């Protein structure tokens, strides 16, 4: 190969019969396109058509170079009859013909999203919200049907999957749940002791910690941790399967996607989250106990007796019942968001985020509802 040319040069001369000839030479390609476009445009702005672009001396021309000519014609508003290409080398004729069609006539496309007015946006948002509700209702319906199916034929539950999910949701989450509740118990005991000490009511720290953990903080903290760990994982896994047509493949092989994907996760969550809550309660009380012994001069025996005296069976069951509801919320929302995913990789991230945000919101909402109900039961 002879030494490659990396520049484009041109000579502009006025013709006798009017108009200008632009004699291009060298390399008019991707390397020089933007530079040449700017320079030619600023020079030809003042000149008047017709223009003759002489390509005799051109050494390299690619589609970027051809586009430069096209853009010049377009920006200088040269009409077809005033725009001439002289002597195009044989090899480049095809390249040049590329730019000779009218983009807008062939199909009307715009770069970027078209802007809608506010009413259209509002209508579209409403329709989408309604179709989301419809999807949600049919999804819950599908889960109910599949559960009925499992109750009738327990064999249709995918056992090994369920056990794997139980491990991921429960066993793997135990360290972090335990640590968080232990620290939480520690904090509650410490904070309440600051007040109760003044009245010499140290022993009631035990009652406070036990009540707070078992009826509120145990279930809620566990649910929030699991929503972050597992809800997002459920959503991301299912969304990935959705966008890569794996769910369609399952469906076409005759599997029921809900039964295959949702039920094992739901069952795993329903079993493990209440168990995790029990552990959370236990570690929370242990945290309180540590403060009681170390800072409040209580004996372990006295602390534990006080704890047992405070807690009732109803209280324990109430807390576990709440965590059961949270388990259902987390797994159903996680799977739902996964199934709703559409599009590319970003849909997976979006599904995971939506799962966490929505399930935490619902957890807090349902907890408030439970608090209201509780105040009526007394």
């Amino acid at each position, binding site marked *: 190969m002879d030494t490659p040319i990396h520049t484009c040069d041109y000579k502009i001369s006025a013709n006798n019969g009017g108009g200008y000839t632009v004699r291009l030479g060298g390399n008019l390609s991707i390397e020089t396109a933007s530079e040449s476009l700017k320079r030619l445009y600023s020079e030809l702005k003042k000149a008047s058509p017709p223009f003759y672009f002489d390509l005799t001396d051109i050494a390299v021309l690619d589609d970027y170079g051809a586009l430069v000519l096209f853009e010049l014609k377009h920006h200088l508003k040269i009409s077809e009859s005033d725009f001439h290409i002289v002597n195009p080398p044989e090899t480049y004729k095809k*390249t040049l013909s590329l730019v000779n069609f009218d983009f807008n006539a062939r199909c009307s496309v715009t770069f970027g999203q078209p802007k809608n007015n506010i009413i259209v946006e509002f209508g579209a948002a409403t329709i989408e919200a309604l179709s989301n509700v419809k999807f949600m209702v049919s999804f819950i319906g599908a889960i109910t049907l599949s559960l009925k199916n499992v109750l009738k034929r327990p064999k249709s539950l995918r056992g090994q999957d369920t056990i794997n999910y139980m491990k991921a949701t429960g066993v793997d989450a135990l360290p972090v749940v335990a640590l968080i509740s232990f620290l939480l118990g520690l904090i509650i005991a410490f904070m309440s002791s600051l007040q109760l000490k003044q009245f010499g009511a140290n022993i009631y720290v035990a009652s406070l910690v036990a009540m707070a953990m078992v009826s509120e903080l145990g279930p809620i903290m566990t649910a929030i941790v699991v929503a972050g760990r597992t809800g997002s994982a459920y959503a991301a896994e299912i969304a990935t399967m959705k966008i890569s047509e794996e769910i369609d493949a399952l469906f076409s092989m005759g599997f029921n996607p809900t039964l295959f994907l949702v039920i094992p996760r739901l069952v795993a969550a329903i079993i493990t989250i209440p168990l995790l809550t029990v552990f959370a309660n236990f570690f929370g009380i242990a945290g309180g106990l540590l403060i009681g012994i170390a800072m409040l001069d209580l004996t372990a025996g006295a602390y534990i007796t006080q704890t047992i005296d405070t807690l009732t069976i109803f209280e324990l069951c109430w807390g576990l019942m709440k965590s059961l509801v949270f388990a259902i919320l987390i797994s159903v929302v996680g799977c739902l968001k996964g199934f709703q995913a559409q599009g590319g990789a970003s849909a997976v991230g979006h599904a995971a985020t939506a799962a966490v945000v929505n399930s935490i919101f619902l957890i807090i909402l349902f907890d408030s509802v439970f608090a209201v109900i509780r105040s009526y039961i007394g």
Partner: protein
Amino acid sequence: MRQSPIIEVKSLTISYNNELILDDISFSVACGEIFMIVGGSGSGKSSLMRHMIGLETPHMGSVFIGNVDITQCADEEFQNALKKIGVLFQSSALIGSMTIGENVALPIIEFTDLPKATIANMVRMKLSLVGLECYVDHLPSEISGGMRKRAGLARAMALNPEILFLDEPSAGLDPITAAEIDELILSINRSLGTTMIIVTHELDSIFNLSQRLVMLEKSSKRIIAEGAPFELKTNSSNPMVRKFFSRRAEMKEERNKSEGSHETIIF
């Protein structure tokens, strides 16, 4: 062979997790050549391509692009080598959150400083080459598999690279579109002198386009044939190779034999 080699693969050995895929492969590709890599499914064509563009580190051996050994050069040199190449992946690899137009525009915006409107026209030009100019605003998930393949091809060609790596460019396309793609490849090769390295199974493309090819085989993990397709079809000493080019399966061969067909193949 027109010019000095632009790509040279020297005793390349590829293995994944200690499982040998290709053993001691050497060949070179001349500048401006249309070079094909063929072989059965799972014979390591895509793996070879991934190694040739430096996506993976070979077990042994080296790959030269220009004069640079991309298996062990400085990062900067590697980036420069990457600027020379365009790649179409087997699975298209369009970015899912961007429209087709944005996918094609991505490298153009990054590596040229043309005005926005000019780039938009360039994108349409590139897409019109593959017949997708009306799908600028579609997301990859909204078009068909063959269309994704074509959009990927448009993106690979966006910067008029010196070397184009195409992994099965016409897989999943109808015969007419496939022929159009072949024609497009040929015309790009003619007008811009682009070197093409193409992985394919399509016999038509092989005979229409390629000047030279290598054939990989799964069991021996080596190149079992190298040369021009027509020559290999008739003159190869390896029956596997002749079978590949005349599109015949093992079974049919056996049947022909047992039926006493006078087509004789010497094993």
